[in-house]
């Protein structure tokens, strides 16, 4: 392990930013946000950024390709720009797991090369969660907030930051920082981990269980009567899907500009009524079906296709953001207690 004194962290960040774009969590008007590093910026102490790190690999909107149309002739113009090296500092365990979940979608054949390039060019420095909050339930999905995954894992002790290189590219980056770090820090890392575990044990949502859900449980839950009451108040606003680190639905849209046509990919939401609407009909006519789709996908369909891994990471963003206070924890509790055999 390598370590650096708390007061030297900005020197270290400055060093990283010399070779790649660096993003660090910074307090903004609407909460913490990953912000491009510049001298003078202060690291946020917030547990979570408002938006997950998904945005860096699968941006809300991105220009896929351009076209020039003249008469009957079409020209395809490739203007891709996702080949830039970047580093994210301070990603939490839940967000890092979400990348594994997205990888299984975007990196499976046929590979989404936009995402793949960003993954190849991005380095994630995760940070153990010093103060997990009452909306956190990552342990439900087997995530250890005291030992996140990532290319480099960082632990923040009282006096020092400790770094552990995990992947090849993480280790390489850490080596480049040798001038601003020194060997050691194992003890600090242990202390931090123990402290985190103590907090995790006291979290209000620590007993939320997902084991009733998972692989091949479609028949058990699809027609559950609970969906009706659960979905009744849902506004279909899509907020939960947008703050979700694992939601991956997208739309493809063209825009006519003066100089040609730009084709964009943008996030979409299964909570929206026009998501599946066709000229021939609407397979999900009411909010019940849309609501059910979102949660069935996270808790049943995704695990069925991905070795039982759940499509939720317990980050709790939907818990704090839904205008009607509906969320996946309530869904799991309600469906779990119902007798859906």
């Amino acid at each position, binding site marked *: 392990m390598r370590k650096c004194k708390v007061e030297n962290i900005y020197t270290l960040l400055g060093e990283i930013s010399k070779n790649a774009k660096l993003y660090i969590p910074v307090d903004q008007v609407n909460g913490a946000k990953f912000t491009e590093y510049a001298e003078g910026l202060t690291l946020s102490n917030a547990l979570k950024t408002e938006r997950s790190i998904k945005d860096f690999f699968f941006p809300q909107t991105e220009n896929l390709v351009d*076209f020039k*149309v003249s008469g009957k002739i079409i020209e395809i113009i490739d203007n891709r720009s996702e080949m830039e090296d970047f580093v994210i500092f301070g990603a939490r365990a839940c967000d890092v797991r979400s990348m594994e979940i997205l990888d299984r979608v975007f990196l499976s054949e046929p590979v989404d*090369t936009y995402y793949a390039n960003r993954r190849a060019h991005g380095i994630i420095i995760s940070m153990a969660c010093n103060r997990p909050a009452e909306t956190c339930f990552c342990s439900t999905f087997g995530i250890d907030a005291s030992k996140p995954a990532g290319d480099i894992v960082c632990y923040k002790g009282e006096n020092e930051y400790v770094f552990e290189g995990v992947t090849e590219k993480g280790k390489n980056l850490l080596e480049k920082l040798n001038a601003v770090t020194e060997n050691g820090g194992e003890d600090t890392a242990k202390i931090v981990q123990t402290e985190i575990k103590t907090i995790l044990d006291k979290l209000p949502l620590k007993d939320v269980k997902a084991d009733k859900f998972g692989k091949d449980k479609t028949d058990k839950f699809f027609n559950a009567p609970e969906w009706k009451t659960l979905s009744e108040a849902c506004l279909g606003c899509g907020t939960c899907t947008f703050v979700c680190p694992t939601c991956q639905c997208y739309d*493809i849209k063209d825009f006519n500009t003066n100089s040609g*046509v730009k*084709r964009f990919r943008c996030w979409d939401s299964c909570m929206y009524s026009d*998501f*599946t609407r066709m*000229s021939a009909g609407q397979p999900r006519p009411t909010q019940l079906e849309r609501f059910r789709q979102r949660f069935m996908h996270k808790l049943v369909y995704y695990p069925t296709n991905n070795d039982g891994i759940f499509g939720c990471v317990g980050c709790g963003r939907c818990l704090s953001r839904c205008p009607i206070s509906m969320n996946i924890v309530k869904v799991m509790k309600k469906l779990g207690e119902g007798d859906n055999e």
Partner: protein
Amino acid sequence: MNNVKEPLIPSIGVITDVRIDTPDVKTFRVVTPEGKKAFLHKPGQCAMLSIPGVGEAMFSITSSPTNTEFMEFSIKKCGCVTEWLHQAEVGQQVTIRGPYGNGFPVEEKFKGKDLLFIAGGIGLAPLRSVINYVRANRADYGKVDIVYGSRSKDDLVDYNEIISEWMTDDGINVHLTIDREQEGWTGHVGFVPAYVKELNFTTDKTAILCGPPIMIKFTLQGLLEMGFEKTQIYTTMELRMKCGIGKCGRCNIGDKYVCKDGPVFRMDELEELPDEY
């Protein structure tokens, strides 16, 4: 740049022929700017066609894989992409990407079987690819029956090919029907499901259905009553699609993606999916 081809970036296709099939169906012939077929495909697979600035949409490839020169798409006018295509002329370029979907198991399951094709309206389009594939590999397949119905004589897609090629082929029986009596029509009159029952087929055939949901529903009922098993019946689905590669989430039903795991499903597989299509 990357060597892996990005699946969402299309290539250019040129419309080299437009055939008017019915008042609202046209068949478009598409090749690359070099005059070649854009890519290889299996019967029942689809392609994404787009007009930049108008949109992209999924269409089943109606021509047979055995046609090595070009692809054809029979397209019914409904929605903006199709409306735009309907006023396109020869020489118009479009974008094309694909092929998508699983296609019909012509090699794995259909070989050596007697085949019963049942189609309604534009539903003949995806089946045409299979029918012509079977015709091109005649020795591999048993007897072929085709039941095809539409509102009127004028709404029968590919009428000329049916009359001049399918009907004259050995071992192919074509049974046409239209919904209502029409001047100049001497053939059968009535709906497809009833006609299928009337024709009283032997139940050793593999049935392949495509058409409006209501036709599928009643035809299926009829076939089951006649003694067909669900494992003998195949159909192909239509859902809203965007990516075509199982990632955008649009065509998800249960743990399946129609664009990738479909659009062809066997009836017993289809019934295992949640009822959301």
